[in-house]
């Protein structure tokens, strides 16, 4: 019944993508050549499967497209999944790529100039996770939502701490910040839309293909 409708697979722009392409290839999802052309301004790309196309969007938007069913499946970091906590988003396969962590960082001198014992101000792209993390410690976190370059916020007095992705820790160090707490270990996950998984057998097949692709040794 829904077989005629092409499947849409959402992938994030940026770092994860380079690691994701080989895994996708093992699972039978190979983009046509236009995908790798840097000059291409296209947002949708055909794949070698006639009934599947790729869309390349921001990581947070991968979750939104898939949760709403506009894309049936996609790849996104567990940080984004936790942040949205969408009930219609399933993350059935841990792809084991894009490893990093979501951490709290503050200036070496501490965050005392802005923060009090039960109330902190945090600059982050992840207000929901941040609030939950601090709430679990009995601390009210006031989040300043930034979309990038959180690292400069403490030095400028915008916020006492930041919650951001850390992989090597170099950016933190260069901005005079130290990691004080680890919120979440992050890896990329295959995500699928709940209703699509239930109603379209092709989505179940994608899950099986990725499960097999990640099970075999790299």
């Amino acid at each position, binding site marked *: 019944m*829904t077989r005629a409708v092409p499947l849409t697979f959402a992938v994030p722009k940026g770092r994860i993508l380079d690691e994701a392409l080989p895994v996708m290839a093992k699972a039978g999802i190979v983009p046509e050549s236009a995908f790798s052309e840097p000059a291409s301004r296209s947002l949708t790309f055909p794949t070698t499967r006639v009934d599947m196309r790729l869309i390349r969007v921001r990581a947070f938007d991968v979750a939104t497209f898939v949760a709403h069913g506009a894309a049936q499946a996609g790849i996104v970091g567990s940080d984004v999944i936790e942040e*949205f906590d*969408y*009930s219609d988003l399933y993350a*059935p396969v841990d792809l084991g790529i894009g490893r990093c962590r979501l951490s709290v960082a503050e200036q070496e001198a501490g965050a005392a100039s802005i923060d009090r014992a039960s109330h902190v101000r945090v600059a982050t792209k992840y207000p929901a996770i941040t609030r939950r993390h601090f709430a679990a410690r009995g601390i009210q976190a006031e989040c300043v939502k930034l979309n990038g370059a959180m690292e400069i916020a403490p030095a400028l007095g915008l916020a006492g701490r930041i919650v951001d992705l850390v992989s090597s820790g170099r950016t933190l160090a260069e901005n005079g910040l130290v990691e004080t707490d680890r919120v979440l270990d992050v890896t990329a996950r295959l995500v699928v839309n709940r*209703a699509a998984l239930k109603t379209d*057998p092709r989505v179940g097949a994608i899950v099986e293909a990725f499960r097999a692709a990640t099970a075999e040794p790299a």
Partner: protein
Amino acid sequence: MTASPPDLLPEGLADRLPGEAALLTQAMRRALDVLASHSYARVRPPLIEFEHSLAQRMAGLSPQRMFRFVDPQSLMTLALRADMTPQVGRIAATSLAAAPRPLRLSYAGEVAVIRADQLDPARQRLQLGAELIGADTVAAAGEIALLAVEAAEAAGARGITVDFTLPDLVDHLAAEGVPAGDLAAIRRELDAKDAGGLAVAGGEEWAPLLHAVGPFDAALARLRAWERAHLLASRLDGLAAIAERIGARARLTLDATERHGFEYQSWFGFTLYAANIGGALGRGGTYRIGGSDEAATGFSLYLDPLVDTLGAEDQAEAVHTLFLPLGHDPAIAARLRAIGWCTVAALDESDNPARLGCTHRLAGGEPVAV
């Protein structure tokens, strides 16, 4: 200060204009007819009740999701219903407590929530359903699941998928001794189908449940092959019996650890999906009525999304609209209405049959095509 436009409707609330309203009314009527034909007697509880009475029977829905306010009469908190199931439960536990069991009741009406879901902006929905009170056996579950499919079909749903689940599975297995460190975390990760998260929560033992998802027969076979399956034997046999009863009327899938919308169900639950509808069309299962703790099985459908998929072919039998000119014979008009015509009576000479959407006009006592 910016003044809000006075006729703007609040977010998540909308009018249904004639075409859509007709389709929705028709879908509701056809589904209710199915329920009536199986002798589910309609009840019509009120829109507003005491909050505590609704809340004690709705484990699945937080009272914070209801519109609530103080009753100037009793000075108690009232709530606008967000789900009709607890109202039916109240009726079964009070006014109809002495009625013979099993008791078959149906209902249809509008429900509202104070804040919409993440994915669906609607704050008001039409809920329609049936409850079989006094039984939560395999036979009762089979009757309700099949009835839900039949009602959805009658309402116009196509390509129906029924997704079975075992709502109390995790608690049952944990009680039977399957090791569960952080049960809440394991439940959450199973729910999100998050294999990585499950491993972090120390729930490797439970991982096979993540694989028992998909087309019913295959998923059931995988579940039966699990080394812990003997703990579930009666539940799995029950599922198989219900599946057999539905047979080929719907595509069947199994997702043993699905919990969405199954906060209060006991051993059996199901979700109904239909072609071209993004989310679920309805859900049902076995449960215990809050307060009286009586066993019951029931389902609810939310028909609003169907309207967008119902096309011309689902439109009520092609309506013939007859224009009645000034001075027509009212007896003839009444006779034609009795055999199915819809009439539009002229109010003055200038009325034009075509502009009023009429397909025919009354001339010489007979309908003539316009």
